[in-house]
């Protein structure tokens, strides 16, 4: 893997005595050499991690609910706690009674995103899958297709476009402006920001951890800089702890916004 930490280790770059410049982590920390290639298709580490996450989520919920019992076993209990968290805190609160049939969708999204984010701090994996832009884009596209489909299904074709673009009760001169703004907001920026939010959070978080880890190694010399190295190490640990919080929060927010968009598509004209 061509992560900056390994290139740093290989170069043996320290602040003293060579005084080589700090090899700041950049975009190259997010590009991996393919594990194997089939023709022009390259199988890389993020793909492997995403596959593992998918297998874990599917496998966990399949084994937990394979033979559901009235008095749940341990695994089923954990699965039910996870399912109920989404059902009560997100689907029921945001969408209401109609939200019950979207709980499986939202649960899968939440746990898949969360697990992909958690990969950032698992030893050996240590890469948030969502910091490659394609993964959040695919998930946001899924949400976009869902709520656009529901909009047109609930309101019909013309009604659907009205629902997406028109706010009732506005003064006449404002209408053309609001139509354009609402269209941009509902159809274009919504999925874009949904994807960017997850991507940029994971990207920045990973960059911070790599940055402090690299600085720890760079400053680690038998001199006064060892103190700074220690401080950097403490910050790297602190950032990792902070990332745990952010990872959960981003998965929660992604699911919350997905359910909000779905509820917006389902509600009667505003």
């Amino acid at each position, binding site marked *: 893997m061509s992560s900056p930490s390994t290139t740093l280790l290989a170069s043996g770059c320290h602040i003293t005595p060579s005084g080589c410049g700090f090899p700041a982590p950049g975009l190259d920390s997010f590009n991996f050499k393919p594990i194997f290639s089939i023709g022009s298709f390259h199988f890389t580490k993020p793909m492997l991690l995403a596959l593992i996450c998918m297998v874990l989520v599917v496998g966990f919920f399949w084994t937990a609910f394979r033979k559901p019992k009235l008095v749940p076993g341990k695994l089923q209990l954990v699965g039910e706690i996870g399912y109920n968290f989404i059902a009560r805190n997100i689907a029921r*609160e945001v969408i209401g009674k109609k939200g019950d049939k979207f709980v499986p969708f939202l649960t899968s999204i939440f746990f898949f995103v969360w697990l992909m984010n958690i990969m950032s701090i698992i030893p050996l994996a240590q890469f948030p899958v969502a910091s490659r832009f394609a993964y959040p884009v695919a998930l946001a596209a899924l949400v976009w297709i869902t709520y656009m489909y529901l909009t047109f299904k609930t309101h019909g074709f013309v009604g659907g476009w009205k629902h997406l673009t028109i706010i009732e009760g506005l003064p006449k001169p404002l209408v053309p402006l609001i139509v354009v703004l609402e269209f941009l907001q509902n159809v274009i920026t919504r999925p874009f920001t949904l994807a*960017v*939010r997850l991507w940029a959070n994971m*990207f920045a978080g990973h960059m911070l951890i790599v940055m402090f880890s690299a600085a720890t190694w760079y400053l680690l010399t038998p001199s006064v800089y060892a103190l700074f190295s220690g401080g950097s190490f403490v910050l790297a640990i602190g950032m990792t702890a902070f990332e745990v919080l952010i990872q959960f*929060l981003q998965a929660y*927010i992604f699911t*919350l916004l997905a359910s909000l968009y779905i509820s917006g598509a389902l509600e009667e004209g505003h």
Partner: protein
Amino acid sequence: MSAQLVDLAAAATGVKGNLGAVAYGLAAIGPGVGIGLVFGHSIEAMARQPEAMPIIRQNMFLGFALCEVLALLGLVVPFIFTA
């Protein structure tokens, strides 16, 4: 364009470096204030009405997400415009 701007700024002030970092600092001011307001008012609301905590917390995270995305767009912009 941005390279010329950096050169211009460097020539005018004698400062070297990437102007993008300054731009992102400026871009983060607004969302910083916004996120502070969101959390501040939510905590105030929770203190006044602890029984409404779940719904306040949910809306707090919603407001937080909508503010935060502005700062994150600032992070994204350099990648778009240097390509």
